[in-house]
């Protein structure tokens, strides 16, 4: 597993996403899949940047590895901020009229839609969100 740890700041988003894109390119992911991975990674990292450290500076770590079957990519995003499981947030109601649309919850919804698996665990004082994408739909 390779990883990159940087201060959880928006200015580092590009570099963190480049790290994911490099891993995806090495596994011959096509443009469409790379787009989906970038989107999922952006949503998860931006969540950490926005909410994990409300009253102090902190870091975000991104780690990538091949899936055990070597048919896809597994990504973990972790932070040492406040305990938070984004997967417990209810999905946004997509049926309400635009005036009632809440401006939140969309990001993690997209991650769940676009990735093959998404899971959360709390370990050693860290939030760890892991997601996988296989090269071919299974």
């Amino acid at each position: 597993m390779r990883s990159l740890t940087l201060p959880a700041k928006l200015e580092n988003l590009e570099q963190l996403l480049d790290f994911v894109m490099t891993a995806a390119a090495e596994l011959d992911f096509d443009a469409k899949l790379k787009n989906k991975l970038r989107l999922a990674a952006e949503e998860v990292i931006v969540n950490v940047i926005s909410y994990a450290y409300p009253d102090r500076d902190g870091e975000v770590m991104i780690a990538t590895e091949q899936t055990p079957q070597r048919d896809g990519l597994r990504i973990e995003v972790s932070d040492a901020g406040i305990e938070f499981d984004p997967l417990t947030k209810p999905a946004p109601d997509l049926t309400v009229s635009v005036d009632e649309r809440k401006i939140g919850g969309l990001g993690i919804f997209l991650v769940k839609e676009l990735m093959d698996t998404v899971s959360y665990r709390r370990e050693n004082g860290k939030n760890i969100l892991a997601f996988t994408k296989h090269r071919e739909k299974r």
Partner: protein
Amino acid sequence: MCKGETMADNISVTCKDECANVVLSGRLDATSAPVLQEELKKLIGQKLGKLVFFAGGLEYISSAGLRVIIFAKQKIGKDTEVLLVGAQQSVLDVIKMSGLDTFLTIQDSFNG
């Protein structure tokens, strides 16, 4: 009367009569979405019949970009039709997945 003109890195906003044209390119993500939001704020309170997002050059949109489009529809005016023109399939997929197609007029092309 809609007025104003802006150019940012990958966003340009121009106004003519009661139609605001927003040309998007590259990535509309957490980095660039706040820039677009600031530009669109300038349109609040102006009388606009149409707000047209030209998305032919847009490669990527994340929830930060989607939120700005929702914001635009909510704040710029009930009577403003919001159009999304020329979006490529991957962008369109995310738009539809998020339910934004319920209030956007989606077209392949637009002649203002």
